[in-house]
């Protein structure tokens, strides 16, 4: 892991400014929500497990998005400057899914972002493969690495 890389584990949220890369490894049915203010070069990444649950927590899109917006506002970011990218929501074992967690995660993430009027400018979602996500806050670039489908830039 490089010096300026910071790992965001499952159910965690990180918000940073400048020369930082936020990383989420091995994302399957989980959803990664990335919020970014290009002008101030401030970005946040959430690694959510499930569409919703009993408590309002960082494990679910609702709580995670609220937390990123809150932390970004401490840096002086206005909500109408924020854009979003969504990655993940795969169905790893085709034919074995029972609750379609991946699909529901993506649906929920889109809905929650819409409530905040945050536009989703790019997505790499669904499919049957895992992804590792590298979000470069300096230029807003999101690099997606997957074992079966190589590299992709969002």
């Amino acid at each position, binding site marked *: 892991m490089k010096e300026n890389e910071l790992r965001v584990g499952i*159910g965690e949220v990180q918000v940073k400014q400048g020369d930082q890369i936020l990383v989420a*490894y*091995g994302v399957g049915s989980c959803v990664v929500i990335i919020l970014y203010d290009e002008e101030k070069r401030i970005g946040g990444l959430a690694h959510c497990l499930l569409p919703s649950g009993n408590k309002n927590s960082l494990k679910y899109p609702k709580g995670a998005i609220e937390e990123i917006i809150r932390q970004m506002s401490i840096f002086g970011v206005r909500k109408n400057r924020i854009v979003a990218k969504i990655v993940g929501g795969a169905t790893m074992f085709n034919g*074995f899914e029972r609750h379609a*967690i991946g699909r529901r995660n993506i649906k929920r993430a889109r809905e929650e972002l819409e409530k905040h009027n945050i536009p989703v400018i790019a997505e790499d979602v669904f499919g049957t493969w*895992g992804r590792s996500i590298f979000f470069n806050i300096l230029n807003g670039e999101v690099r997606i690495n997957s*074992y079966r489908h190589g590299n992709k830039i969002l």
Partner: protein
Amino acid sequence: MIDAKRLTPEQLDALREVANIGSGHAATSLSQLMGKKVMVRVPKILTGPLEEVILKIADPNDVVVSVLLYFLGDLTGRTLLLYPFEEAQELTTLLMPTVQDNVTEVQESLLKEVSNILSCSYMNSLGELLGLLILPSVPGMIVDMVGAVLSSVVLEFGREKDFIFCVETEFDFGDAGKPLSAFFLLLPDTTSLEAILKKLNLEK
């Protein structure tokens, strides 16, 4: 309802023993199939939040060949076999040294079948020991990052969403100079965990 977070040392011991018997039978099957000695490590019970358990098994970025089966009947849950990518290749070469055409397709089918045999002999011995009927599904297989595989399997089927209870057994099938291993994970549903402990008369 049993709380997997608060199992007593006696209950954990009993579960380890059950896993030991299951994996012992599975190792015997693998050994017969390969005509080689297969060793089993003492099973480990892994409990905790999803992220923590994944890190205990491997780096989430590591590529593994994973085979999933679910079982129904008196016990419900999943078994997941994880072979680090290189070991999977090695294992197929050991089992079928002369493969030439369609290597990946044949290898895939072979690994599925091996995993099927391992899982079924594991579950059969558990069923016999506990006097319970366990029916396994057909296997599903993917090659991908271990973090993505594990988190998705647990979230898609688990009830206690971010808390995992799983029994891990490591198989060693390498020669003295070349250690090879695979991981067998047993992920019973909470109700099945209860049923196992009840059969063992260790219910609180």
